[in-house]
């Protein structure tokens, strides 16, 4: 009896030591990944700086033909998009390694949504898409800039996927003691950027944007999910505890964790 107890005790101690080793390995791997991503992000930004400098230097030439000037605008947009992509990659690494501090404060949901609408409305107007906000009066403990970033990424994607004349809705309301945020679009069907099913460049960029959105929501104790809307379209949503606790809600919701909606995971919903 005593020897069985002793063996059980030894096994528990060994299991505990194994778990600690594994956790240390995971922390080391996350730290190494973050360091690599930070280094890559720096080098890409430095190269982008050279490209941006050359492009703005050429653009200053008043004799430049209009057609060439338009192409330079495409280059500038592409450079901005790459910059955003590397920043997202770096941020995902930091969030995974736990080195990104989220400075939370009590923020008004309406002010957050106002910021997001202000950011995406110009792009929406260009594409003939209407952006509508529906917000309840509630205060949310969160890192404001990060939540704005999540909703802006979701909103931009929704605008990109919604046909001209369609509507994108951004919602914030209390649900079950939590602040519930959603972005709803009216996309008709999934984009097929590559008939082979391999993710295209745009898909990859959106995948990274989605990854950073998920990581930020996770860090707030929530889960980013998506679901098809009855009348067509897609809803991305997440919630944040109103009391600042980290309980992840929505586990029983009839929806898909957002990352599984990514084209690489089988669905092609524009992310």
């Amino acid at each position, binding site marked *: 009896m005593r020897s069985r107890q002793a063996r059980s005790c030894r096994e528990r101690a060994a299991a505990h030591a194994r778990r600690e080793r594994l956790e240390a390995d995971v922390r080391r791997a996350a730290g190494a990944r973050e360091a690599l991503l930070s280094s890559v992000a*720096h080098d890409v930004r430095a190269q982008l700086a050279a490209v941006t*400098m050359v492009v703005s230097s050429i653009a200053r030439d008043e004799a430049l033909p209009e057609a060439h000037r338009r192409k330079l605008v495409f280059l500038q947009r592409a450079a901005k998009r790459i*910059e955003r992509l590397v920043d997202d990659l770096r941020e995902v690494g930091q969030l995974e390694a736990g080195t990104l501090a989220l400075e939370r404060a009590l923020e008004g949901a309406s002010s957050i949504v106002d910021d997001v609408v202000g950011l995406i409305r110009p792009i929406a107007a260009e594409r003939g898409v209407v952006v509508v906000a529906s917000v309840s009066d509630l205060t949310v403990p969160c890192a404001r800039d990060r939540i704005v970033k999540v909703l802006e990424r979701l909103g931009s994607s929704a605008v990109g996927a919604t046909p001209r004349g369609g509507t994108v809705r951004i919602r914030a309301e209390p649900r079950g003691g939590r602040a519930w945020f959603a972005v709803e679009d009216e996309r008709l069907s999934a984009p097929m950027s590559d008939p082979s099913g391999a993710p295209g460049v745009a898909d990859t960029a959106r995948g990274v944007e989605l990854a950073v959105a998920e990581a930020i929501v996770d860090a707030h104790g929530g889960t980013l999910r998506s679901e098809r809307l009855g009348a067509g379209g897609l809803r991305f949503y997440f919630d944040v505890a109103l009391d600042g606790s980290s309980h992840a809600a929505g586990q029983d919701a009839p929806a898909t964790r957002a990352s599984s909606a990514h084209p690489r995971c089988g669905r092609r919903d524009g992310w």
Partner: protein
Amino acid sequence: MGEVQQPERESGVIDRRPTVFLADDDDLFRAVLKDELIAHGYAVEDVSDGAQALELLAMAADGLAASPDVVVLDVRMPGYSGLGVLNVMRRFAKRPPTLLLTAVPDPSIDVLARTMGAFGVLHKPVELDEVLDAVEEAVLSKARRSSRV
């Protein structure tokens, strides 16, 4: 490039072409910025690492090179970093306004640089106009400082 433009300045404060010391290890970035600065009426001395930047500053202090009106330093460079050079410059009796360029999107660099007396911090990728405006502002600030003395 067109005609050489002279940077706007307060009349009678600087009679010569303002001199910019530019240190950046990215050859393409440095070459384009140097060309544009020259096209906008600046004299430019450029180097590709922090140690060379310090050497150039030492030569200027000894009267062997033109004294810079503005120093532009990349933060991450071989040898001394931009912050390292700025730290050494703190010992100078007369320190030219210094702009830092960085591809590291970390706000703590701004705080540190300003604590160390940097005139400004520009985050790469940066538009050419933004750099030119910052350089011009730095030249004017030095000119104003000199006219007060």
